[in-house]
């Protein structure tokens, strides 16, 4: 899975809740959606709990960018 941002995860999670609430999805889809939603909720929760704030300086970021480019 491509690295998801918190915003993407929350947006998708809310979408899933709406889909499930509408009751239009098939049972198979519902189960899959529920599974995905549970995973997203866990991801969001983990993201918020990630206690370690990462701090870099701009010059480090610049050096990294150059490193990636080569």
């Amino acid at each position, binding site marked *: 899975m491509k690295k998801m*941002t*918190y*915003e993407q995860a*929350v947006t998708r*999670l*809310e979408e*899933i*809740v709406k889909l*499930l*609430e509408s*009751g239009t*999805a098939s*049972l198979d889809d*519902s189960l899959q959606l*529920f599974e995905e*939603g*549970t995973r997203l*909720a866990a991801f*969001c*929760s983990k*993201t*918020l709990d*990630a*206690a*370690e*704030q*990462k*701090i*870099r*300086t*701009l010059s*480090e*970021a*610049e050096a990294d*960018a150059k490193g990636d480019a080569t």
Partner: protein
Amino acid sequence: MLYNTPLVLSVAQLNRYVKSKMDADENLNHIFLVGEISNFKHHTSGHLYFTLKDEEAQVRAVMFRSAAARLRFQVSDGMRVLVRGRVSLYEAGGSYQVFVDDMQPDGAGALSLAFEQLKEKLAREGLFDPAHKRALPKFPHTIGVITSETGAAVHDILRILQRRYPAAQVIFAPVAVQGEDAPAQMIAALETFNRLRCADVLILGRGGGSAEDLWAFNDEQLARAVYRSEIPVISAVGHETDFTICDFVADLRAPTPSAAAELAVPDRAALKTQLRQTTAELQKAMTDTLSERRSSLALLCSRGAFSQPQLFFDEKRMRLLTLCSTFQHVQQTGLHAARVKLGEMAAKLQSLSPLAVLSRGYALASDPGGRPLKSVTKLHKDDRICVRLTDGTATCAVLDTQLLTK
């Protein structure tokens, strides 16, 4: 010389002469003057008349309607102002006065004037246009912080980001925030962030200080760099009461660096609450989906076919029997009708048969070729003809023919 040949001037001549002397003096043509306003009169013509004074002296001043229309504050007695204008003589009154072109409330003197001028210029160019302001990302992944390494601002910002939303990474660009190099360093940091695209939102600012300390944030080039930035910029310069050009051009102005950090990220505690709620909704939605299906399944099962299968089959069997008997009935009645019809047809056929006519005593005459004879005109004496009676044929010779007259 004046003693010897006294030159007598008119008052008008004197005033015109003094005026011409004053107008020729370049120093008097462009002056900045600080003073307190008194005797302020806003004439119906739109011109402003007042006196500028300080502790020791005073001078008359006039600001004509066209210049007065550009004023962006209310003038009143007792106000200290900085004026720009020229000095000349009002010939009719014989008093010299200041002809004011522009006037600012005197906060930081010339700096204030320059600030107002730049602000107006950039506003005219549309740099403060609300339509240009970008929305901040709701959940920034990376936050760029452009401020001094040594000031309190960076600690305030990091502390609040850590508390509210530690999930966000911080990229810190240490720069000088005051002094000659400050604008260039801040511009360079803005440009680097934009080039690398390594932040979702930028905080540009510094802690409190004197108006001079904050001056770098009034730099025109810095303002343009903020305007150009494609990453949204939150400005956070000094305290709540300090306004800089940066504040006007930024996408969002925060009253302090701490406030900028709070504006940049959502609050983790609030998000957690919301997430818990969404998770509960997810579970409820799934439970509802399942129980809905369960109850519709139960409803389906309770219907006849499933609850009493015997009845279901009995019913089917009954129907089958009915169908079979109907079929038989139809078949039988159909056969009978056909038989009756056949009888009728046979009788009809019988009645039409020429053989039936022969049995009643009629005879059928034909030529030797078997063609029926219909007229005597074709017959001659001694012709042979064939006569068919009901039980056989006789070959006969023609003796005579007579045509019946009608």
